[in-house]
């Protein structure tokens, strides 16, 4: 990647038809070089970011190796760093959020794409877009003052009473912890699932619905057995996008998860997440190893979201193209 930024690429199709000097005189070549510098700086910054993360996490990689991900002692005093509690917290809260957000988001997307008249669908989509624009610190403050008391006083005691035989719903109900963080994350990622799934569902060719209906299926059967399977890849893509977003979410999670590096099966327990530990300790890192361990966690987060975003984009593009291709045929 880095080498391509330094080579000047061949001239574009239209500019290429005139001599270099003529283009230089008219300023085209200059404009081209200036804009190229700006475009190249995007690549440069991205490469630099990856390089910094890699270079600044060399100490823990050498010292702990793979054990970094298998041990659960996080002790700055004795320079022992194991990332397991943070990885556990991040994955658990993201899973909880998906369990809540996926059915809700896909249901809403089906309504917007299949049932609602275009006008209502567009209006609701506008509100969904606004919901996606709400910053995470707002979710954080609502989480602290609204969701935590709600969890402590109603939801967690209720779950304990009805599902308390499961280890997931045992232990004291303090309000903050995995479940609360997962619930707040769910609200944050729903708009992403809805927007992308709606687009994908709308790209499913009309014939697919009409064929199913003409064979005598009900409206729901046509939607659930024909339209949704057709759009399956794209919907999965929207879920990956939402998951990537949930894994990297920092502020709202930090405010409600309880910030204790422990691993418990109970969803009522306090925990910690990768992003939260970085937010809390990066500026107060006591030793170089401590600082670099946090950077390595950042690298892990980066790689996770990188893979998920890449997969999501592939799935969404493939599904939309499939719809477009069938539409023309």
């Amino acid at each position, binding site marked *: 990647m880095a080498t391509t930024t330094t080579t000047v690429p061949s001239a574009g199709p239209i500019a290429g038809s005139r001599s270099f000097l003529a283009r230089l005189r008219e300023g085209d070549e200059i404009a081209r070089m200036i804009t190229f510098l700006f475009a190249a700086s995007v690549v440069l910054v991205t490469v630099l970011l990856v390089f910094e993360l890699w270079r600044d996490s060399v100490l823990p990689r050498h010292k702990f190796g793979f054990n970094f991900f298998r041990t659960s002692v996080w002790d700055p005093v004795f320079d022992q760093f194991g990332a397991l509690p943070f990885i556990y917290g991040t994955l658990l809260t993201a899973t909880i959020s998906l369990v809540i957000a996926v*059915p809700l988001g896909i249901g809403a997307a089906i309504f917007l794409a299949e049932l609602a008249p275009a006008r209502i669908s567009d209006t609701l989509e506008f509100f969904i877009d606004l919901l996606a624009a709400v910053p995470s610190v707002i979710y954080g403050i609502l989480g602290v003052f609204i969701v935590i008391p709600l969890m402590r006083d109603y939801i967690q005691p209720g779950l304990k009473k009805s599902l308390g035989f499961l280890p997931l719903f045992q232990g004291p109900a303090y309000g903050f912890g995995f479940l609360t963080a997962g619930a707040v994350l769910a609200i944050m990622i729903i708009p992403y699932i809805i927007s992308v799934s709606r687009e994908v569902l709308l790209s499913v060719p009309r014939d697919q619905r009409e064929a199913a209906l003409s064979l005598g299926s009900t409206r729901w059967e046509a939607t659930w057995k024909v339209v949704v399977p057709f759009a399956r890849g794209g919907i999965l893509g929207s879920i990956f996008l939402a998951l990537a977003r949930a894994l990297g979410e920092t*502020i709202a999670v930090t405010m409600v998860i309880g910030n204790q590096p422990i691993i418990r099966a109970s969803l009522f327990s306090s925990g910690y997440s990768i992003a939260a530990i970085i937010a809390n300790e990066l500026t107060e890192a006591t030793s170089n190893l401590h600082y670099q361990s946090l950077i390595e966690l950042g690298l892990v987060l*980066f790689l996770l979201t990188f893979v998920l975003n890449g997969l999501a984009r592939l799935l969404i593009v493939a599904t939309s193209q499939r719809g477009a291709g069938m539409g023309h045929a």
Partner: protein
Amino acid sequence: MSPRLRWRKFVSGFMLTMTGVCALVSVSMLFFILGYLVYHGGTSISWNFFTKLPTPVGETGGGMANAIVGSGKLLLLATIFGVPIGFLGAIYLAEFSGGTTAFIVRYAADLLNGVPSIVIGIFAYSLVVLPFKHFSTLAGGFALGLIMIPITLRSTEEFLRAVPNALREASMALGASKTKTIASVIVPAAYRGILTAILLAFARVAGETAPLLFTAFGNSFWSAGWNQPTASLPAMIYTYALTPYDDWHRQAWAAGLVLLGLILIINIVARAILSRGIAVPRS
């Protein structure tokens, strides 16, 4: 009607109703959020909030003037840093570049766009804060600008590509140079879309908190300069909400209301410019 068909019709009606409920629940979240913020924040907003410095615990009547100015400075820096790179980079992608270069730049932008904001914060911290050995407004603006780059770049490119090729050809046929064509035909034609893209990128970073924790840090007083730490609205909300003081909680709600109001208004204006075509003055 056979019982089997009746059952299928019942299932269909029931499930379709459920999807409606899902949509209603999701959309109503926005109104819950707005409602709670207006309810809690509305009573705490006063003239003091916009004009006074924060007061120590126990003293009433303080405000967040320094955080409002701090956020303004950070966003100004972010725009100055992020928008030109995104905008000019997009012009290169849409008008000049060949396939491979465009692919690499686009790939890098998408990658940058997906990076969690906390990781952007780490990057700005190790690149700007550590070498200069103190937190600064500049570092915060750099971090926010980084987030603005890919959003501006990708949407600007899309709007430039949406300009019909006939316009380009007509301009060149009249003898205009490529630069002239871009500056006076293509960019004006895509003006609304580009403005929308920039506004949305601006609204997105206005609420970012995580990258500011390591860069602009925070400050209870007026920031002493561009290379000194500064307060910002999102960081103030974060800090104040986690304290045990009722008075500070009220300030946090008020700041949340101001911040969310600003972001939603920018979003609505941006979309209005694009869809209903509010007249935008062209040079």
